[in-house]
């Protein structure tokens, strides 16, 4: 899973670079607009190490933001699973807020909180929270009738059991959504760093952008891609192990 993720990223990345070089060749653009391979390699040699640590810095925000989102999404999703008025109210709010581009709120957050770690974390969490919430709400509010019937009719149903049944029956769906949300969290963190931050790969890309240095941006994109591929691959492997462990060993 992990290697497949990296392999897929490398394919896409090098296809993109090849496309750029083809455009450069066809239109006859200078190295200033689209750098050639030697320049990209030279820039990579100079900046790769620094960018790697910048991506790790962004990854910290991503992971923390994702964890906060997952906890929040499950808490609200479980509370909103019932067809009571509270459940309907939570669902209505979630669907409506989800329809709004949260990233547009980023400037307000920076005006109120300034640069730094907290605004980045907040934006990363917010961007991956709503898609996660909708998936969790969808799973938690869909009864698994053929399993739940017995517990309901015999009066043995408890909310913890209901949540466990629904989570277990939709384990692969939840795992996919959680690992997919890593990309969203990282996108949120990078966007936050673009707008106003003093650290992270988004901040470095912003500087490269001001310098119109596409080679630096390409190296930064490579670092982001590799790191997020490894992180997603690890998440997928972990979720696969958890699914197997829950399905095979627990409860005996």
């Amino acid at each position, binding site marked *: 899973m992990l290697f497949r993720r990296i392999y897929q990223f490398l394919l896409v990345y090098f296809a993109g670079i090849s496309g750029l070089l083809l455009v450069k060749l066809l239109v006859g653009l200078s190295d200033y607009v689209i750098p050639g391979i030697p320049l990209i390699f030279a820039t990579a040699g100079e900046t790769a190490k620094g960018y790697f640590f910048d991506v790790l810095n962004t990854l910290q925000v991503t992971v923390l933001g994702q964890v906060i989102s997952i906890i929040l999404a499950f808490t609200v999703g479980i509370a909103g699973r019932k067809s009571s008025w509270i459940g309907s109210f939570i669902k209505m709010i979630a669907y409506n807020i989800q329809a709004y581009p949260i990233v547009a709120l980023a400037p307000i957050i920076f005006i109120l909180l300034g640069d730094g770690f907290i605004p980045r974390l907040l934006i990363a969490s917010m961007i991956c929270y709503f898609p996660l919430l909708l998936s969790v709400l969808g799973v938690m509010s869909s009864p698994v009738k*053929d*399993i739940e*019937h*017995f517990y309901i*009719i*015999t009066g*043995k149903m408890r909310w913890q059991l209901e949540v*466990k*049944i629904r989570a*277990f*029956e939709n384990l692969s769906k939840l795992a996919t959504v959680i690992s997919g949300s890593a990309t969203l969290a990282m996108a949120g963190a990078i966007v936050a760093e673009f707008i106003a931050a003093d650290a992270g790969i988004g901040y470095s890309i912003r500087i490269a952008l001001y310098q119109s240095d596409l080679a630096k941006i390409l190296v930064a994109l490579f670092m982001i891609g590799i790191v997020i591929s490894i992180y997603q691959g690890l998440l997928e492997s972990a979720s696969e192990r958890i699914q197997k462990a*829950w*399905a095979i060993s*627990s*409860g*005996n």
Partner: protein
Amino acid sequence: MMHLECSNITYSYPGTDHKVLDALTCTLSRPGFHSIFGPSGVGKSSFARLLADLNRHTFLGKIEFTEIQTVLYSYNLERLPGWSSAGAHLDKVVAKEKEALKQELINIFELSPLLGSRFHQLSMGQQNRINLIRYLLQTFDLLILDESLANVDEKLRQAIILTIKRIFPQKMFLYISHNLMEVSTFCDEILVFGGGSTGKSYGTIQGQNCCSSEAVDRKKVDETMLEIMNAF
């Protein structure tokens, strides 16, 4: 005396005009192993679900339970959660004081070697037996078995029905099955649901209510079967 009386029950699913039950009147006058019999789509399962959860459904007519406090409804497509083995699941849902009964039922239902397996690893007949056993070990007055023995081989099905009749003589069972011979032989009162071109029809026929396989009078069973077929 345990008693179930339904008068003029008319029921349609919400949002439809189609009457699933149309002026159904029937009585089950004593505990025992009774049956609902009829072709597919005449409202057997709908009636069963109505009985099991009166508060959730809106219907016309009157359903009266006497000495029936707890109604359970089991059906053949139910599943057990997949995170534990069938045996572990049974342990969790069965009260300690019913341990001896559980062991007896497990032996009769031929489930001992399967208790370590996950539900999805079992055949459909095995799944239905596990499902039925957990219902039999709950507290109930009326247990509805909606095709709960589907996919179980005939010999074992017969043994299970006879066991239920022997162990739970004071309980009421309502067995929904498409097996005419089995219903005629082992059931007490048989509610026959018809749904021909002239509309819905309902009747009650006395089954042979045999309590052992040796006591079966083939001639009388044939007569009951004929009576049921004519009642459609």
